[in-house]
């Protein structure tokens, strides 16, 4: 769907803007809302702009919250928004382990 990126109404602060949404990277609701008003209209752009969802848990905790905030600011349904992608490894893994070329049988 072609979406013309309109400018949103002016950013107005809200009482709970100081609330931390991304715990890994300590990104607040206010920072996320301000970035949306600055033109970051997708989960991926928000991640790349603010690092929310880029920490140790890779957004497992906060992605739904970020999506809800984005949907509300853009006045769309959360289901209308694309998710960020999940990538290997499923859990953080040491470089030496990833580097291992040896096959262990049994």
């Amino acid at each position, binding site marked *: 769907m072609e*979406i013309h990126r309109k400018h949103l109404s002016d950013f107005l602060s809200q009482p709970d803007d100081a609330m931390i949404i991304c715990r890994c990277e300590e990104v607040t609701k206010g920072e996320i809302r301000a970035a949306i008003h600055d033109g970051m*209209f997708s989960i991926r752009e928000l991640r790349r702009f603010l690092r929310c969802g880029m920490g140790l848990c890779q957004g497992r905790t906060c992605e739904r919250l970020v999506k809800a905030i984005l949907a509300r600011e853009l006045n769309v349904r959360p289901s209308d928004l*694309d998710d960020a992608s999940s*990538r290997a490894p499923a859990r*953080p893994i*040491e*470089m030496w382990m990833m580097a291992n070329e040896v096959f262990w049988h049994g």
Partner: protein
Amino acid sequence: MAEIIVVGAGAIGNASAYYLAKSGAKVTVLEKDSCIGNGGSSRNGGGVRQSGRNPAELPPVMYGVRNIWPGLSDELGMDIEYCQEGNLRLGKTEEHLKILRELVRDAEAGGLAMRMVDRAEAREICPFLSDEVAGASWCPTDGHANPLLVTLAFYRAARRLGVDFVTGAEVVSLRKKRSRVVAVVTACGSVYEGDGVLVAAGYGAGKLLRTAGIDVPMAPVLMEMLVTEESPPMFFQMLGAAMSDFYGHQTKHGSFIFGGTHGFEPYTDSSRLTGTSIAASNTCRGVIGYFPVLKDLKILRTWAGVLDDCFDHIPVIDNPVEAPGLTVGCGFSGHGFGLAPVAGLLLSQLALGGSPALPLDRFKYDRFRAKARSGNT
């Protein structure tokens, strides 16, 4: 006021849009993805590197490092994490050092200050190197920046200058009027018309340009990268190896970004942006071989991207004579990020019919000549 349609909202498309708007043009940027900068612009290693380049690319990349990169955070109104702490390209064997000496010789011929350093000096520059490192090439004016932020900073600044951005708008054909390329048609059937069209669409540019009879010989090549957990500041040089088995740097945030080549790149499936089974482990072996101290760092994420690898591995930055109205920037072959700001500037100048800040003869579309020549005997 000229009106330009830009195809592609990556680093180069956004930079083009920014400089066009700054020159007073009316600009619409069309992006096929739902997200700005979701191609190579947000999947690369962030190198702002002059060393190790094709000599043809030295003038524009050196122009960018002298005139654009140092002031880019101020110009765009946000920190793009530009860090100019040099590039070390490491070698362990005499064969490696021979490759590095050739790179230094080519750089010097192009006027770039670069030299070989021995084992001791390399370790002075970066104390965390493996004892096996025998020497390195050293370019002190190289560096890196955050490609995610550079791409979005140009987008944000362009938007503030009044540029219109449309996402989900996949351009499927170029349209001529009185033999000038002035309009595009999207997959949804929308038509966007202006006074000219600027295509900065990476590998996707190939298929699109063919609709106007322009054939740029490019191949898609899948490249993969990884990012580690954050670590206290260790070193801020851009790093690489003679055999390109790894490259990367530590970011301002503290995590390390690494990529590498494994040798099978042309034979992987680039139609899906999914990692192969070989790349991440190959890169880890490359990194640990030069930086054993990093072996316990945890990898948080891996990802893949596609290069628009041109036949001669340098880009097309041109107004092809065959298609008046059309400005082309593609085929950056994996060197596009460091060139993005200057490429955007040059493309904006071409699109407005002005004279570009630098000669662009080496990047012309007419350099591609098929084997058989007329009049051959």
